[in-house]
Protein backbone atom coordinates (compact mmCIF):
# COMPACT_ATOMS: atom_id res chain seq x y z
CA UNK A 1 0.00 0.00 0.00
CA UNK A 2 1.47 3.34 -1.10
CA UNK A 3 0.84 6.31 1.18
CA UNK A 4 1.87 9.86 0.53
CA UNK A 5 3.61 11.66 3.38
CA UNK A 6 0.50 13.81 3.90
CA UNK A 7 -1.73 10.70 4.14
CA UNK A 8 0.71 9.00 6.50
CA UNK A 9 0.81 12.01 8.84
CA UNK A 10 -2.98 12.33 8.75
CA UNK A 11 -3.40 8.62 9.54
CA UNK A 12 -0.86 8.87 12.37
CA UNK A 13 -2.67 11.91 13.75
CA UNK A 14 -6.00 10.11 13.66
CA UNK A 15 -4.43 7.11 15.38
CA UNK A 16 -2.97 9.23 18.18
CA UNK A 17 -6.18 11.19 18.73
CA UNK A 18 -8.42 8.10 18.66
CA UNK A 19 -6.16 5.95 20.84
CA UNK A 20 -5.91 8.82 23.33
CA UNK A 21 -9.68 9.12 23.40
CA UNK A 22 -10.02 5.36 23.83
CA UNK A 23 -7.62 5.42 26.77
CA UNK A 24 -9.48 8.35 28.28
CA UNK A 25 -12.74 6.47 27.93
CA UNK A 26 -11.27 3.33 29.46
CA UNK A 27 -9.61 4.96 32.39
CA UNK A 28 -11.12 7.72 34.44
CA UNK A 29 -8.81 10.28 36.08
CA UNK A 30 -9.22 8.44 39.37
CA UNK A 31 -7.76 5.26 38.02
CA UNK A 32 -11.10 3.47 38.34
CA UNK A 33 -12.66 1.99 35.26
CA UNK A 34 -14.95 4.41 33.50
CA UNK A 35 -18.65 4.20 33.98
CA UNK A 36 -21.12 3.30 31.28
CA UNK A 37 -21.79 6.36 29.15
CA UNK A 38 -25.47 6.35 30.21
CA UNK A 39 -24.52 6.05 33.85
CA UNK A 40 -25.14 9.17 35.92
CA UNK A 41 -23.43 9.16 39.28
CA UNK A 42 -25.87 11.69 40.72
CA UNK A 43 -28.75 9.26 40.16
CA UNK A 44 -27.37 6.60 42.52
CA UNK A 45 -26.42 6.14 46.16
CA UNK A 46 -25.06 2.66 46.53
CA UNK A 47 -25.43 0.43 49.55
CA UNK A 48 -25.79 -3.27 50.34
CA UNK A 49 -28.20 -5.35 52.34
CA UNK A 50 -27.23 -8.57 54.09
CA UNK A 51 -29.68 -11.10 55.41
CA UNK A 52 -27.88 -12.97 58.18
CA UNK A 53 -30.48 -15.76 58.18
CA UNK A 54 -29.80 -16.53 54.54
CA UNK A 55 -26.00 -16.73 54.72
CA UNK A 56 -24.83 -20.35 54.72
CA UNK A 57 -21.11 -19.58 54.87
CA UNK A 58 -20.36 -21.12 51.47
CA UNK A 59 -17.48 -18.70 50.87
CA UNK A 60 -18.64 -18.18 47.26
CA UNK A 61 -18.65 -14.43 47.78
CA UNK A 62 -15.06 -14.41 49.05
CA UNK A 63 -13.85 -16.51 46.12
CA UNK A 64 -15.77 -14.45 43.58
CA UNK A 65 -14.39 -11.23 45.00
CA UNK A 66 -10.83 -12.54 45.03
CA UNK A 67 -11.11 -13.60 41.38
CA UNK A 68 -12.92 -10.51 40.17
CA UNK A 69 -10.65 -8.03 41.91
CA UNK A 70 -7.35 -9.92 41.99
CA UNK A 71 -7.24 -9.61 45.75
CA UNK A 72 -3.73 -10.46 47.02
CA UNK A 73 -3.34 -13.64 49.05
CA UNK A 74 -3.75 -13.15 52.76
CA UNK A 75 -5.89 -10.03 52.39
CA UNK A 76 -9.63 -9.64 51.91
CA UNK A 77 -12.02 -7.15 50.35
CA UNK A 78 -14.81 -9.28 51.74
CA UNK A 79 -14.82 -12.14 54.19
CA UNK A 80 -17.24 -14.24 56.22
CA UNK A 81 -17.15 -14.78 59.99
CA UNK A 82 -18.82 -17.58 61.87
CA UNK A 83 -20.19 -16.56 65.26
CA UNK A 84 -20.99 -19.04 67.97
CA UNK A 85 -22.75 -17.41 70.87
CA UNK A 86 -23.37 -19.10 74.15
CA UNK A 87 -26.58 -17.74 75.60
CA UNK A 88 -25.00 -17.28 79.04
CA UNK A 89 -21.87 -15.49 77.84
CA UNK A 90 -22.92 -13.16 75.08
CA UNK A 91 -19.95 -10.84 75.61
CA UNK A 92 -17.47 -13.48 74.52
CA UNK A 93 -18.68 -15.06 71.31
CA UNK A 94 -16.45 -17.58 69.58
CA UNK A 95 -15.61 -16.14 66.19
CA UNK A 96 -13.62 -17.60 63.35
CA UNK A 97 -12.93 -16.70 59.77
CA UNK A 98 -10.43 -19.25 58.48
CA UNK A 99 -8.71 -17.67 55.48
CA UNK A 100 -11.57 -15.22 55.36
CA UNK A 101 -14.01 -18.10 54.91
CA UNK A 102 -12.85 -18.51 51.32
CA UNK A 103 -13.15 -22.30 51.56
CA UNK A 104 -16.37 -22.23 53.51
CA UNK A 105 -16.67 -23.58 57.06
CA UNK A 106 -16.54 -27.12 58.42
CA UNK A 107 -19.93 -28.31 59.62
CA UNK A 108 -20.30 -28.10 63.36
CA UNK A 109 -23.19 -28.55 65.70
CA UNK A 110 -22.77 -27.37 69.26
CA UNK A 111 -25.87 -27.93 71.34
CA UNK A 112 -27.10 -24.84 73.12
CA UNK A 113 -24.98 -22.53 71.03
CA UNK A 114 -26.36 -20.05 68.55
CA UNK A 115 -24.35 -20.18 65.34
CA UNK A 116 -24.58 -17.87 62.35
CA UNK A 117 -22.47 -16.35 59.59
CA UNK A 118 -21.69 -12.67 59.12
CA UNK A 119 -20.38 -11.54 55.74
CA UNK A 120 -18.23 -8.42 56.02
CA UNK A 121 -17.07 -5.87 53.50
CA UNK A 122 -16.38 -2.15 53.34
CA UNK A 123 -19.41 -0.38 54.77
CA UNK A 124 -19.16 2.43 52.17
CA UNK A 125 -19.58 4.92 55.00
CA UNK A 126 -21.13 8.27 54.20
CA UNK A 127 -19.02 9.88 56.95
CA UNK A 128 -16.02 7.73 56.41
CA UNK A 129 -13.13 7.95 58.91
CA UNK A 130 -10.74 6.64 56.24
CA UNK A 131 -11.65 9.50 53.90
CA UNK A 132 -11.28 11.98 56.73
CA UNK A 133 -7.73 10.98 57.61
CA UNK A 134 -6.19 10.42 54.16
CA UNK A 135 -3.41 13.04 54.00
CA UNK A 136 -3.57 13.53 50.24
CA UNK A 137 -7.24 12.92 49.52
CA UNK A 138 -6.49 9.71 47.61
CA UNK A 139 -9.42 8.07 49.37
CA UNK A 140 -12.72 9.69 48.59
CA UNK A 141 -16.46 9.10 48.45
CA UNK A 142 -17.70 9.07 44.89
CA UNK A 143 -20.86 11.10 44.11
CA UNK A 144 -22.77 7.81 43.98
CA UNK A 145 -21.73 6.87 47.50
CA UNK A 146 -18.83 4.43 47.04
CA UNK A 147 -15.60 4.86 48.99
CA UNK A 148 -12.76 4.51 46.49
CA UNK A 149 -8.98 4.78 46.50
CA UNK A 150 -7.06 6.56 43.77
CA UNK A 151 -4.14 4.18 43.62
CA UNK A 152 -2.17 6.51 41.37
CA UNK A 153 -2.20 9.07 44.15
CA UNK A 154 -2.14 7.09 47.41
CA UNK A 155 1.17 7.50 49.27
CA UNK A 156 0.73 4.25 51.20
CA UNK A 157 0.95 5.73 54.69
CA UNK A 158 -1.60 3.33 56.18
CA UNK A 159 -3.43 5.99 58.18
CA UNK A 160 -6.74 4.97 56.58
CA UNK A 161 -6.11 1.34 57.60
CA UNK A 162 -5.79 2.50 61.20
CA UNK A 163 -8.88 4.69 60.96
CA UNK A 164 -11.25 2.04 59.62
CA UNK A 165 -13.19 0.63 62.58
CA UNK A 166 -14.15 -2.49 60.64
CA UNK A 167 -10.76 -3.81 59.48
CA UNK A 168 -11.77 -3.51 55.85
CA UNK A 169 -8.58 -1.96 54.50
CA UNK A 170 -5.07 -3.20 53.96
CA UNK A 171 -1.89 -2.08 52.25
CA UNK A 172 -1.56 -3.96 48.97
CA UNK A 173 1.63 -6.03 49.29
CA UNK A 174 2.89 -5.37 45.76
CA UNK A 175 1.25 -2.07 44.80
CA UNK A 176 2.11 -0.56 48.22
CA UNK A 177 -1.10 1.46 48.31
CA UNK A 178 -4.30 1.19 50.31
CA UNK A 179 -6.74 -1.34 48.93
CA UNK A 180 -10.32 -2.21 49.81
CA UNK A 181 -13.72 -3.23 48.48
CA UNK A 182 -14.85 -0.93 45.68
CA UNK A 183 -18.34 -2.41 45.66
CA UNK A 184 -17.22 -3.69 42.24
CA UNK A 185 -17.50 -0.14 40.95
CA UNK A 186 -16.41 -1.27 37.49
CA UNK A 187 -19.44 -3.57 37.40
CA UNK A 188 -22.18 -1.59 39.11
CA UNK A 189 -21.62 1.42 36.89
CA UNK A 190 -22.33 -0.84 33.92
CA UNK A 191 -25.63 -2.03 35.32
CA UNK A 192 -24.23 -5.26 36.80
CA UNK A 193 -24.31 -6.31 40.42
CA UNK A 194 -21.20 -6.95 42.50
CA UNK A 195 -19.25 -10.19 42.12
CA UNK A 196 -20.07 -11.24 45.70
CA UNK A 197 -23.81 -10.64 45.25
CA UNK A 198 -23.81 -12.49 41.96
CA UNK A 199 -22.02 -15.48 43.47
CA UNK A 200 -24.13 -15.69 46.62
CA UNK A 201 -26.19 -18.92 46.30
CA UNK A 202 -28.92 -17.80 48.69
CA UNK A 203 -29.30 -14.13 47.85
CA UNK A 204 -28.11 -13.15 51.32
CA UNK A 205 -26.26 -10.17 49.86
CA UNK A 206 -28.02 -7.67 47.68
CA UNK A 207 -26.69 -4.55 46.06
CA UNK A 208 -28.96 -1.62 46.84
CA UNK A 209 -29.44 1.77 45.32
CA UNK A 210 -30.93 4.08 47.91
CA UNK A 211 -31.74 6.72 45.31
CA UNK A 212 -33.80 4.35 43.21
CA UNK A 213 -37.38 4.48 44.54
CA UNK A 214 -38.13 1.10 42.97
CA UNK A 215 -35.23 -0.65 44.66
CA UNK A 216 -36.40 -3.39 47.10
CA UNK A 217 -33.98 -1.95 49.67
CA UNK A 218 -36.65 0.50 50.81
CA UNK A 219 -39.05 -2.32 51.64
CA UNK A 220 -36.17 -4.26 53.22
CA UNK A 221 -35.34 -1.37 55.53
CA UNK A 222 -39.00 -0.71 56.33
CA UNK A 223 -40.18 -4.17 57.32
CA UNK A 224 -37.08 -5.71 58.91
CA UNK A 225 -35.07 -5.18 62.07
CA UNK A 226 -32.01 -3.68 60.42
CA UNK A 227 -28.70 -2.65 61.94
CA UNK A 228 -25.29 -1.53 60.78
CA UNK A 229 -21.98 -2.66 62.32
CA UNK A 230 -20.68 -0.59 65.22
CA UNK A 231 -23.38 2.10 65.04
CA UNK A 232 -21.66 3.92 67.91
CA UNK A 233 -18.91 4.87 65.45
CA UNK A 234 -21.37 7.13 63.60
CA UNK A 235 -19.73 6.51 60.26
CA UNK A 236 -22.91 6.49 58.20
CA UNK A 237 -22.30 2.85 57.26
CA UNK A 238 -24.38 1.71 54.28
CA UNK A 239 -24.17 -2.06 54.64
CA UNK A 240 -27.45 -2.94 56.32
CA UNK A 241 -27.76 -6.23 58.19
CA UNK A 242 -31.09 -7.89 58.81
CA UNK A 243 -31.40 -9.58 62.22
CA UNK A 244 -27.86 -8.71 63.27
CA UNK A 245 -27.09 -10.26 66.63
CA UNK A 246 -25.94 -7.83 69.32
CA UNK A 247 -22.76 -9.85 69.88
CA UNK A 248 -21.43 -9.06 66.41
CA UNK A 249 -18.54 -6.62 66.26
Amino acid at each position, binding site marked *: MDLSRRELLAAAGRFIVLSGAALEAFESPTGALAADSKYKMADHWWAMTIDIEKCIGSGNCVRACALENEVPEGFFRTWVERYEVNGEDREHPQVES*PEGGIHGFPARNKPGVKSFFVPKLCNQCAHSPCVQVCPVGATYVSPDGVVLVDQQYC*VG*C*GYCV*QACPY*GCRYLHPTKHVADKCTLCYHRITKGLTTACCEACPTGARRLADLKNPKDPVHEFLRVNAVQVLKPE*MATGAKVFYKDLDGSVR
Partner: protein
Amino acid sequence: MHAIPSGVQGFMYPNEVQLTWSVLIVLYPFITGLVAGAFILASLARVFHIVAVQPIYRLSLLTALAFLLVAPLPLQLHLGHPERSFEMYMTPHKTSAMAMFGFVYLWYLLVVLLLEIWLDYRRDIVLLARSRTGVMKWIYSALTLGSRNIDAKSLHVDDRVGWTVTLIGIPSAFLLHGYVGFIFGSIKANPWWSTPLMPVVFIFSAMVSGIAVVLLVYETVTYVRKRPIDMACLDTVAKYLLYIFLVDFSLEMLDLIHRMYEASESFRTLDFMVHTQLYVSQILLQIILGTLVPVSLLALVQVVKLRAILRRRIYALAAALTLIGIFAMRWNVVIGGQLFSKSFLGYTTYKMAFAAREGLLPAIALLILPFLFLWVLLKLLPPWAEQKAG
Protein backbone atom coordinates in the same frame (compact mmCIF):
# COMPACT_ATOMS: atom_id res chain seq x y z
CA MET B 1 -7.32 -27.50 57.52
CA HIS B 2 -8.18 -24.04 58.81
CA ALA B 3 -5.19 -23.05 60.88
CA ILE B 4 -5.29 -19.81 62.81
CA PRO B 5 -2.55 -17.54 61.38
CA SER B 6 0.63 -17.86 63.40
CA GLY B 7 0.98 -15.35 66.20
CA VAL B 8 -2.78 -14.83 66.48
CA GLN B 9 -4.72 -15.51 69.65
CA GLY B 10 -8.49 -15.49 69.47
CA PHE B 11 -10.07 -13.71 66.52
CA MET B 12 -8.61 -10.92 64.42
CA TYR B 13 -10.33 -9.42 61.40
CA PRO B 14 -8.39 -11.09 58.57
CA ASN B 15 -6.78 -7.83 57.40
CA GLU B 16 -5.53 -7.01 60.89
CA VAL B 17 -3.14 -9.91 61.28
CA GLN B 18 -0.16 -8.01 59.86
CA LEU B 19 0.67 -4.71 61.50
CA THR B 20 0.44 -1.68 59.23
CA TRP B 21 2.76 0.57 61.25
CA SER B 22 6.19 -0.71 62.19
CA VAL B 23 9.05 0.25 64.48
CA LEU B 24 9.75 3.22 62.18
CA ILE B 25 6.48 4.80 63.25
CA VAL B 26 7.61 4.26 66.84
CA LEU B 27 10.68 6.34 66.06
CA TYR B 28 8.63 9.18 64.61
CA PRO B 29 6.96 10.34 67.86
CA PHE B 30 10.10 9.44 69.81
CA ILE B 31 12.33 11.67 67.72
CA THR B 32 9.89 14.57 67.39
CA GLY B 33 9.44 14.37 71.16
CA LEU B 34 13.17 14.78 71.68
CA VAL B 35 13.09 17.83 69.39
CA ALA B 36 10.22 19.49 71.21
CA GLY B 37 11.64 18.70 74.64
CA ALA B 38 15.15 19.93 73.83
CA PHE B 39 13.73 23.16 72.44
CA ILE B 40 11.54 23.79 75.47
CA LEU B 41 14.61 23.29 77.68
CA ALA B 42 16.43 25.91 75.62
CA SER B 43 13.52 28.28 76.01
CA LEU B 44 13.86 28.07 79.80
CA ALA B 45 17.12 29.94 79.46
CA ARG B 46 16.04 32.34 76.75
CA VAL B 47 12.49 33.33 77.59
CA PHE B 48 12.14 32.45 81.24
CA HIS B 49 15.63 33.67 82.12
CA ILE B 50 16.58 30.60 84.14
CA VAL B 51 20.23 31.55 84.42
CA ALA B 52 21.33 28.15 85.71
CA VAL B 53 20.48 26.41 82.45
CA GLN B 54 22.22 29.03 80.30
CA PRO B 55 25.29 26.78 79.71
CA ILE B 56 23.18 24.25 77.82
CA TYR B 57 21.06 26.74 75.86
CA ARG B 58 22.96 26.35 72.63
CA LEU B 59 23.55 22.65 73.11
CA SER B 60 19.80 22.17 73.49
CA LEU B 61 19.10 24.06 70.29
CA LEU B 62 21.66 22.06 68.31
CA THR B 63 20.34 18.80 69.76
CA ALA B 64 16.83 19.79 68.75
CA LEU B 65 18.04 20.59 65.23
CA ALA B 66 20.00 17.32 64.88
CA PHE B 67 16.92 15.30 65.76
CA LEU B 68 14.58 17.47 63.73
CA LEU B 69 16.62 16.81 60.60
CA VAL B 70 16.07 13.07 61.10
CA ALA B 71 12.39 13.32 62.17
CA PRO B 72 10.80 12.92 58.71
CA LEU B 73 13.08 10.06 57.64
CA PRO B 74 11.25 7.22 59.41
CA LEU B 75 7.99 8.42 57.86
CA GLN B 76 9.57 8.67 54.45
CA LEU B 77 11.02 5.16 54.75
CA HIS B 78 7.68 3.79 55.87
CA LEU B 79 5.58 5.19 53.01
CA GLY B 80 4.55 2.73 50.33
CA HIS B 81 5.26 5.45 47.77
CA PRO B 82 7.80 7.88 49.23
CA GLU B 83 8.15 9.52 45.82
CA ARG B 84 4.59 10.82 46.22
CA SER B 85 5.13 12.33 49.67
CA PHE B 86 5.38 15.84 48.19
CA GLU B 87 1.66 15.51 47.43
CA MET B 88 1.08 16.20 51.13
CA TYR B 89 2.50 19.68 50.52
CA MET B 90 1.00 20.22 47.09
CA THR B 91 -2.51 18.92 47.69
CA PRO B 92 -2.97 18.44 51.42
CA HIS B 93 -6.29 17.01 52.48
CA LYS B 94 -7.65 19.56 54.88
CA THR B 95 -9.51 17.12 57.12
CA SER B 96 -6.48 14.92 57.67
CA ALA B 97 -4.36 15.38 60.78
CA MET B 98 -1.43 13.75 59.01
CA ALA B 99 -1.57 16.19 56.09
CA MET B 100 -0.45 18.95 58.39
CA PHE B 101 2.83 17.25 59.30
CA GLY B 102 4.81 18.81 56.48
CA PHE B 103 3.64 22.31 57.32
CA VAL B 104 4.12 21.94 61.05
CA TYR B 105 7.57 20.46 60.39
CA LEU B 106 8.65 23.18 57.97
CA TRP B 107 7.34 25.90 60.24
CA TYR B 108 9.28 24.48 63.14
CA LEU B 109 12.45 23.85 61.12
CA LEU B 110 12.61 27.05 59.11
CA VAL B 111 10.76 29.67 61.12
CA VAL B 112 11.67 28.57 64.61
CA LEU B 113 14.76 26.45 64.96
CA LEU B 114 17.01 27.48 62.08
CA LEU B 115 16.16 31.15 62.52
CA GLU B 116 16.79 31.09 66.24
CA ILE B 117 20.08 29.24 65.88
CA TRP B 118 21.20 31.56 63.10
CA LEU B 119 20.34 34.68 65.10
CA ASP B 120 22.09 33.36 68.18
CA TYR B 121 25.18 32.29 66.27
CA ARG B 122 25.37 35.15 63.76
CA ARG B 123 28.11 36.97 65.63
CA ASP B 124 30.16 33.78 65.98
CA ILE B 125 29.61 32.90 62.34
CA VAL B 126 30.83 36.31 61.18
CA LEU B 127 33.90 36.07 63.43
CA LEU B 128 34.62 32.53 62.21
CA ALA B 129 34.20 33.64 58.59
CA ARG B 130 36.85 36.28 59.23
CA SER B 131 39.29 34.06 61.11
CA ARG B 132 39.08 30.76 59.23
CA THR B 133 40.70 29.91 55.92
CA GLY B 134 39.99 27.61 52.97
CA VAL B 135 36.77 25.64 52.74
CA MET B 136 35.67 26.53 56.28
CA LYS B 137 35.92 30.23 55.49
CA TRP B 138 33.70 29.63 52.49
CA ILE B 139 31.19 27.65 54.56
CA TYR B 140 31.02 30.26 57.33
CA SER B 141 30.76 33.07 54.77
CA ALA B 142 27.79 31.29 53.23
CA LEU B 143 26.24 30.83 56.69
CA THR B 144 26.36 34.59 57.31
CA LEU B 145 23.79 34.91 54.50
CA GLY B 146 25.52 38.16 53.66
CA SER B 147 24.75 39.71 57.02
CA ARG B 148 28.17 40.64 58.40
CA ASN B 149 27.34 43.64 60.54
CA ILE B 150 28.04 42.73 64.18
CA ASP B 151 28.08 46.09 65.87
CA ALA B 152 26.30 46.44 69.20
CA LYS B 153 23.09 47.81 67.69
CA SER B 154 22.89 45.00 65.19
CA LEU B 155 23.50 42.35 67.87
CA HIS B 156 20.82 43.92 70.00
CA VAL B 157 18.36 43.52 67.13
CA ASP B 158 19.46 39.86 66.81
CA ASP B 159 18.80 39.36 70.48
CA ARG B 160 15.34 40.91 70.43
CA VAL B 161 14.29 39.06 67.29
CA GLY B 162 15.76 35.82 68.71
CA TRP B 163 13.78 36.30 71.89
CA THR B 164 10.59 36.77 69.87
CA VAL B 165 11.35 33.69 67.79
CA THR B 166 11.83 31.64 70.98
CA LEU B 167 8.56 33.01 72.28
CA ILE B 168 6.85 31.82 69.09
CA GLY B 169 8.88 28.63 69.33
CA ILE B 170 7.40 27.49 72.64
CA PRO B 171 3.83 27.11 71.37
CA SER B 172 5.31 25.78 68.14
CA ALA B 173 7.12 23.03 70.06
CA PHE B 174 3.86 22.25 71.83
CA LEU B 175 2.12 22.27 68.47
CA LEU B 176 4.69 19.95 66.90
CA HIS B 177 4.38 17.25 69.46
CA GLY B 178 0.82 17.83 70.55
CA TYR B 179 -0.02 17.43 66.91
CA VAL B 180 1.79 14.08 66.78
CA GLY B 181 -0.29 13.01 69.76
CA PHE B 182 -3.43 14.17 67.96
CA ILE B 183 -2.61 11.89 64.99
CA PHE B 184 -3.12 8.96 67.34
CA GLY B 185 -5.61 10.46 69.77
CA SER B 186 -8.12 11.34 67.06
CA ILE B 187 -8.55 7.79 65.74
CA LYS B 188 -11.95 6.86 67.15
CA ALA B 189 -11.68 3.34 65.74
CA ASN B 190 -8.89 2.54 68.18
CA PRO B 191 -9.75 2.77 71.89
CA TRP B 192 -6.08 2.41 72.88
CA TRP B 193 -5.33 5.68 71.07
CA SER B 194 -8.59 7.55 71.16
CA THR B 195 -8.32 9.91 74.11
CA PRO B 196 -8.15 13.70 74.27
CA LEU B 197 -5.34 13.25 76.79
CA MET B 198 -3.08 11.83 74.12
CA PRO B 199 -1.71 15.18 72.79
CA VAL B 200 -1.15 16.41 76.37
CA VAL B 201 0.60 13.22 77.42
CA PHE B 202 2.72 13.42 74.28
CA ILE B 203 3.76 17.00 75.06
CA PHE B 204 4.82 16.24 78.61
CA SER B 205 6.56 13.01 77.68
CA ALA B 206 8.31 14.98 74.92
CA MET B 207 9.62 17.46 77.45
CA VAL B 208 10.78 14.62 79.68
CA SER B 209 12.63 12.85 76.88
CA GLY B 210 14.09 16.07 75.43
CA ILE B 211 15.47 17.17 78.78
CA ALA B 212 16.86 13.68 79.41
CA VAL B 213 18.65 13.55 76.07
CA VAL B 214 20.20 17.01 76.49
CA LEU B 215 21.31 16.09 80.01
CA LEU B 216 22.98 12.94 78.70
CA VAL B 217 24.57 14.76 75.77
CA TYR B 218 25.85 17.49 78.08
CA GLU B 219 27.41 14.97 80.46
CA THR B 220 28.93 12.97 77.60
CA VAL B 221 30.30 15.98 75.74
CA THR B 222 31.85 17.46 78.89
CA TYR B 223 33.42 14.11 79.70
CA VAL B 224 34.83 13.71 76.18
CA ARG B 225 36.13 17.28 76.14
CA LYS B 226 37.58 16.79 79.64
CA ARG B 227 36.03 20.04 80.82
CA PRO B 228 34.49 20.71 84.22
CA ILE B 229 30.75 20.27 84.28
CA ASP B 230 28.51 23.03 85.56
CA MET B 231 26.84 21.25 88.48
CA ALA B 232 24.41 24.09 89.18
CA CYS B 233 23.18 23.73 85.62
CA LEU B 234 23.00 19.94 85.87
CA ASP B 235 21.13 20.10 89.19
CA THR B 236 18.61 22.55 87.78
CA VAL B 237 18.03 20.50 84.63
CA ALA B 238 17.58 17.34 86.74
CA LYS B 239 15.11 19.18 88.95
CA TYR B 240 13.06 20.23 85.92
CA LEU B 241 13.24 16.68 84.63
CA LEU B 242 11.80 15.40 87.90
CA TYR B 243 8.98 17.95 88.07
CA ILE B 244 7.88 17.48 84.49
CA PHE B 245 8.21 13.71 84.82
CA LEU B 246 5.82 13.81 87.77
CA VAL B 247 3.25 15.74 85.72
CA ASP B 248 3.71 13.34 82.81
CA PHE B 249 3.35 10.26 85.02
CA SER B 250 0.28 11.74 86.72
CA LEU B 251 -1.37 12.32 83.35
CA GLU B 252 -0.63 8.78 82.26
CA MET B 253 -1.98 7.41 85.52
CA LEU B 254 -5.07 9.59 85.13
CA ASP B 255 -5.65 8.02 81.74
CA LEU B 256 -5.15 4.54 83.21
CA ILE B 257 -7.42 5.11 86.21
CA HIS B 258 -10.08 6.63 83.98
CA ARG B 259 -9.99 3.58 81.72
CA MET B 260 -10.07 1.16 84.65
CA TYR B 261 -12.94 2.91 86.39
CA GLU B 262 -14.97 3.40 83.24
CA ALA B 263 -14.26 -0.21 82.18
CA SER B 264 -15.90 0.28 78.82
CA GLU B 265 -16.25 -2.31 76.10
CA SER B 266 -12.59 -2.38 75.15
CA PHE B 267 -11.16 -2.38 78.66
CA ARG B 268 -10.91 -6.10 79.25
CA THR B 269 -9.16 -6.57 75.92
CA LEU B 270 -6.67 -3.78 76.58
CA ASP B 271 -6.12 -4.88 80.16
CA PHE B 272 -5.35 -8.41 79.04
CA MET B 273 -2.96 -7.05 76.40
CA VAL B 274 -1.07 -4.98 78.97
CA HIS B 275 -0.63 -8.06 81.13
CA THR B 276 0.49 -10.31 78.28
CA GLN B 277 1.86 -8.92 75.00
CA LEU B 278 2.84 -5.57 76.50
CA TYR B 279 3.95 -6.80 79.89
CA VAL B 280 7.65 -6.32 79.26
CA SER B 281 7.42 -3.07 77.32
CA GLN B 282 4.65 -1.46 79.38
CA ILE B 283 4.90 -2.73 82.94
CA LEU B 284 8.61 -3.47 83.18
CA LEU B 285 10.24 -1.04 80.75
CA GLN B 286 7.88 1.93 80.66
CA ILE B 287 6.40 2.06 84.13
CA ILE B 288 8.96 0.43 86.43
CA LEU B 289 12.37 0.80 84.80
CA GLY B 290 11.59 3.85 82.69
CA THR B 291 9.49 5.88 85.13
CA LEU B 292 9.46 4.76 88.76
CA VAL B 293 13.20 4.09 88.94
CA PRO B 294 14.36 7.38 87.35
CA VAL B 295 11.74 9.39 89.27
CA SER B 296 12.94 7.76 92.50
CA LEU B 297 16.57 8.44 91.63
CA LEU B 298 15.88 12.07 90.80
CA ALA B 299 13.80 12.47 93.96
CA LEU B 300 16.55 10.89 96.03
CA VAL B 301 18.96 13.60 94.96
CA GLN B 302 16.43 16.21 96.11
CA VAL B 303 16.14 14.81 99.62
CA VAL B 304 19.62 13.38 100.29
CA LYS B 305 22.80 15.42 100.08
CA LEU B 306 25.11 13.61 97.71
CA ARG B 307 28.58 14.37 96.34
CA ALA B 308 28.76 15.97 92.90
CA ILE B 309 30.28 12.94 91.21
CA LEU B 310 27.53 10.70 92.57
CA ARG B 311 24.82 13.15 91.55
CA ARG B 312 26.30 13.29 88.11
CA ARG B 313 26.19 9.51 87.77
CA ILE B 314 22.68 9.31 89.14
CA TYR B 315 21.52 11.93 86.66
CA ALA B 316 23.12 10.06 83.77
CA LEU B 317 21.52 6.80 84.85
CA ALA B 318 18.13 8.43 85.39
CA ALA B 319 18.30 10.15 81.99
CA ALA B 320 19.25 6.94 80.20
CA LEU B 321 16.41 5.04 81.91
CA THR B 322 14.03 7.89 81.10
CA LEU B 323 14.87 7.62 77.41
CA ILE B 324 14.28 3.86 77.53
CA GLY B 325 10.97 4.48 79.28
CA ILE B 326 9.79 7.09 76.79
CA PHE B 327 10.84 4.91 73.86
CA ALA B 328 8.86 2.07 75.45
CA MET B 329 5.91 4.44 75.83
CA ARG B 330 6.02 5.26 72.10
CA TRP B 331 6.33 1.55 71.34
CA ASN B 332 3.34 0.74 73.52
CA VAL B 333 1.24 3.40 71.83
CA VAL B 334 2.14 2.58 68.22
CA ILE B 335 2.69 -1.17 68.33
CA GLY B 336 0.34 -1.83 71.24
CA GLY B 337 -2.43 -0.05 69.38
CA GLN B 338 -2.22 -2.61 66.61
CA LEU B 339 -1.80 -5.81 68.62
CA PHE B 340 -5.46 -6.20 69.50
CA SER B 341 -8.37 -6.67 67.13
CA LYS B 342 -10.86 -3.89 66.68
CA SER B 343 -13.38 -6.66 67.27
CA PHE B 344 -11.89 -6.88 70.82
CA LEU B 345 -11.84 -10.63 70.39
CA GLY B 346 -8.19 -11.39 69.77
CA TYR B 347 -4.55 -10.41 69.50
CA THR B 348 -1.81 -10.58 66.95
CA THR B 349 1.98 -10.44 67.22
CA TYR B 350 4.46 -7.93 65.84
CA LYS B 351 7.21 -9.67 63.92
CA MET B 352 9.98 -7.15 63.42
CA ALA B 353 12.24 -7.76 60.45
CA PHE B 354 15.97 -7.11 60.81
CA ALA B 355 17.56 -5.81 57.61
CA ALA B 356 14.31 -4.96 55.78
CA ARG B 357 13.26 -1.41 54.93
CA GLU B 358 11.13 -1.21 58.06
CA GLY B 359 13.32 -3.47 60.15
CA LEU B 360 15.47 -3.13 63.23
CA LEU B 361 18.64 -2.21 61.34
CA PRO B 362 17.30 0.98 59.70
CA ALA B 363 15.66 1.85 63.02
CA ILE B 364 19.02 1.65 64.79
CA ALA B 365 20.64 3.65 61.99
CA LEU B 366 17.96 6.33 62.35
CA LEU B 367 18.65 6.53 66.07
CA ILE B 368 22.40 6.91 65.50
CA LEU B 369 22.06 9.44 62.68
CA PRO B 370 20.95 12.40 64.87
CA PHE B 371 24.08 11.97 66.98
CA LEU B 372 26.23 12.11 63.83
CA PHE B 373 24.37 15.27 62.79
CA LEU B 374 24.90 16.65 66.28
CA TRP B 375 28.63 15.91 66.10
CA VAL B 376 28.86 17.83 62.82
CA LEU B 377 26.82 20.70 64.25
CA LEU B 378 29.00 20.86 67.36
CA LYS B 379 32.10 21.06 65.14
CA LEU B 380 30.54 23.66 62.89
CA LEU B 381 28.83 25.76 65.53
CA PRO B 382 30.63 25.20 68.84
CA PRO B 383 28.19 25.92 71.66
CA TRP B 384 30.84 26.17 74.36
CA ALA B 385 30.98 29.25 76.51
CA GLU B 386 34.69 29.82 75.83
CA GLN B 387 34.07 30.10 72.07
CA LYS B 388 31.18 32.47 72.58
CA ALA B 389 33.27 34.67 74.82
CA GLY B 390 36.05 34.74 72.24
